[in-house]
């Protein structure tokens, strides 16, 4: 696609967002900014071309494509948070509940630092259960002091209904705090498909090394297969937003940018995805 196309699309996108905000019930006070996911210095990151950057004041959802990809989904979500945090002051508020922390591990600050997230900016809220989590999430989304809000929806996924989604969407819109939810696998189904989230991503772990390399190599930077999983109104309006395509991307933890993993052979990766789908099914 040509550069002209993409810039037009961005303009269109922005207009659309402005429209939505205008039509909001007056709760919209924060100015929406768009944060690119990739480095502005390099050739456009495919997601930026497709999405026109990440808007603040919106809800994002991330889910692993299978159980074992949960850490990858978390890593991707943190990448999003890091992008927001890089462009605005404030805290990265991470909400999780007891069960999730126990089951999936809790945020590990040294690892966050290496992942490109300043642990000094992280406030970690660890609720006793799902109810508290949703309450805390809403409070956090409403707060203007956060650069991003991240939540492990794990135990609260069941409670996260359309009402809750709407409340949080509105809260985020009002405060301008981008809010990112990490879902358990296979939760983008049914009625939830129509909640107010701006974008959904389905994440799969991808090898960072070539298969059967010898001698055994050392692991590299995070590689993920990511699929836009938001069919529906908005997506329909966006040309080229293929909800079936899985793009392999890399998180440049040192610079805090996403980038396309073009160098890696895709066949192996797509093969892995099929296997993953088989697993999660």
């Amino acid at each position, binding site marked *: 696609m040509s550069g002209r196309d993409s810039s037009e699309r961005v303009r269109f996108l922005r207009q659309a967002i402005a429209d939505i905000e205008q039509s909001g019930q007056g709760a919209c006070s924060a100015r929406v900014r768009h944060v690119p996911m990739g480095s502005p210095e390099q050739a456009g990151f495919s997601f930026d071309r497709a999405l026109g950057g990440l808007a603040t004041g919106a809800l994002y959802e991330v889910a692993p494509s299978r159980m*074992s*990809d*949960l*850490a*990858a989904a*978390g*890593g991707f979500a*943190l*990448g999003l948070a890091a992008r927001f945090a890089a462009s605005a*002051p*404030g*805290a990265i*508020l991470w909400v999780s509940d007891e069960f999730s922390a*126990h089951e*999936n*591990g*809790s*945020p*590990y*600050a*040294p*690892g*966050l*630092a*290496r*992942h490109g997230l*300043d*642990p*000094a900016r*992280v*406030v*970690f*809220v*660890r*609720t006793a259960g799902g109810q*508290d989590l949703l*309450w*805390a999430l809403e*409070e*956090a989304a409403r*707060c*203007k*002091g*956060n650069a991003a809000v991240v939540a492990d929806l794990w135990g609260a996924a069941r409670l996260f209904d359309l009402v809750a989604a709407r409340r949080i969407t509105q809260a985020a819109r009002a405060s301008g705090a981008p809010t990112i939810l990490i879902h358990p696998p296979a939760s983008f189904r049914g009625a939830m498909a129509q909640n107010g989230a701006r974008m959904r991503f389905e994440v799969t*772990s*991808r*090898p*960072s*090394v070539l*298969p059967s390399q010898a001698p*055994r*190599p*050392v*692991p590299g*930077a*995070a590689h993920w297969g990511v699929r836009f999983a938001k069919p529906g109104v908005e997506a329909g309006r966006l040309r080229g937003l293929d909800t079936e395509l899985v793009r392999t991307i890399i*998180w440049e*933890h*040192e610079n805090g940018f996403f980038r396309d993993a073009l160098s890696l052979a895709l066949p192996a990766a797509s093969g*892995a995805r099929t296997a993953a789908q088989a697993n999660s099914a």
Partner: protein
Amino acid sequence: MDGTARRLGLAPGLSLSDARAVAPDLDAVEHDSAAFERRLAGVADWCRRFTPLAALDAPDGAMLDITGVTHLFGGEAALAREIEQRLARQGVTGVCAIASTPEAAFAFARFCTTRLAPPSEEKSLLRLVSRLPVAALRLDAGTVAALGRAGLKQIGDIHMRPRAPIAARFGARIFDTLDAMLGLSRSPISPRFESPAYIVERRFAEGVGAREQIETTIGALAQDLCGMLERHGEGARRLCASLFRVDGAVRHIHAGTSRPTRDPRALARLFRERLEAAGKTRDEDPLDIGYGFDVIRLAATEVENLDPSQAVLTQRRTATAAQSDLDFSNGERAEHLADLVDRLGARLGTRRVLRFVEQDTHLPEHAVMAVPAAEIRTRATKGAFAFEAGDAPDRPIRLFERPEPVEAIASVPDGPPLRFRWRRLTHEVAAIEGPERIAPEWWRHEASALTRDYFRVEDVDGHRFWLFREGLYGTETARPRWFVHGLFA
């Protein structure tokens, strides 16, 4: 120097090794001058229960202006006695002297057994002062020594001699102080008392312990205070409620307003919230009421003219002056965030709202400490959790609180895992880094601690794990066990 030390044969000026040679069982604690100053400041602060005009008189005392308050305590002698007794109950040996000038009080407290100095117009004061050593004139040690060598050891030696030669040799300040001591002139160096312009208080015979009673009292005090403010056309910007506990502790609760206020209900509400907040940050007895408070005082420490035309200006100033508990980079956001932290903490408990503080250790599970966000007043140093750039992350983003056992196939003694089974899934290892060997902290005596060999592992599907083998094969254990400790992104 207390009696015990003297009995042991210790004396000031002894070197520690000498002192230890004298009394080998001596426990020496380095003179913590900061702690001493804090304690002294605490005592001076405590003294404000008797009069708001109390000040620290460094290096070792406090000075109280008790003009007009002695009747509250049954006279000067009774007041002096009460101060000493109450101090004693706090474990402080204090000497209290009352005189008509600060200089005389200073001197009598330190250099004389007379505690109630006669009024300055009396001859007997001069007689008493004459017998004090010259050091009582607040002279430096060098001057005291020089005077001593001239045979001028007591104030009387100086007082009865011609002034000019002495002033020429030792400075005229001697006589300034002397005159001030005798009430003949005003002293140039007496301690400065600073007291808020608006101050109201209640005294109780018994300690007040109930939260409600404290709140009611503050409410009533706010009424009085606002009356005073109104009379002067001013409003409070900063307030301080001081709670004097029976046993000597003093609790100050500060509150600020965004604009000048003299609405008693608003002020009372402000303090009610603060009292509640105090209850939330400390989980036990939040106000630490103990034996109760017997003096409660409310003061407006900063006031502004409450003039409608200035309201706008005031508002603007508030925004910039806002300070917050959580010092993130942007002031306004920080305020919001502090509010959020308080709200979350209030409902969930402060121990559920956390920030990460780096701990300097090799042991992964100890390398970070989660601290209640409410307790961190400043931003952690940037660049904390330092690491060597350039590689893939060598620490996971998620860590299991309890490492989860896995079954792994690996070669001895320290080969990497080739395949492992975790949560019923088998992972074929495609990439590894390691072993990173972390030995137990030998100085900590955790009996069972074993050396760990950490491996960063990526399986064929691209899942990234942090595994470790516990125990060195052969030397520490015959059958090392394997665990997964964390997950990479």
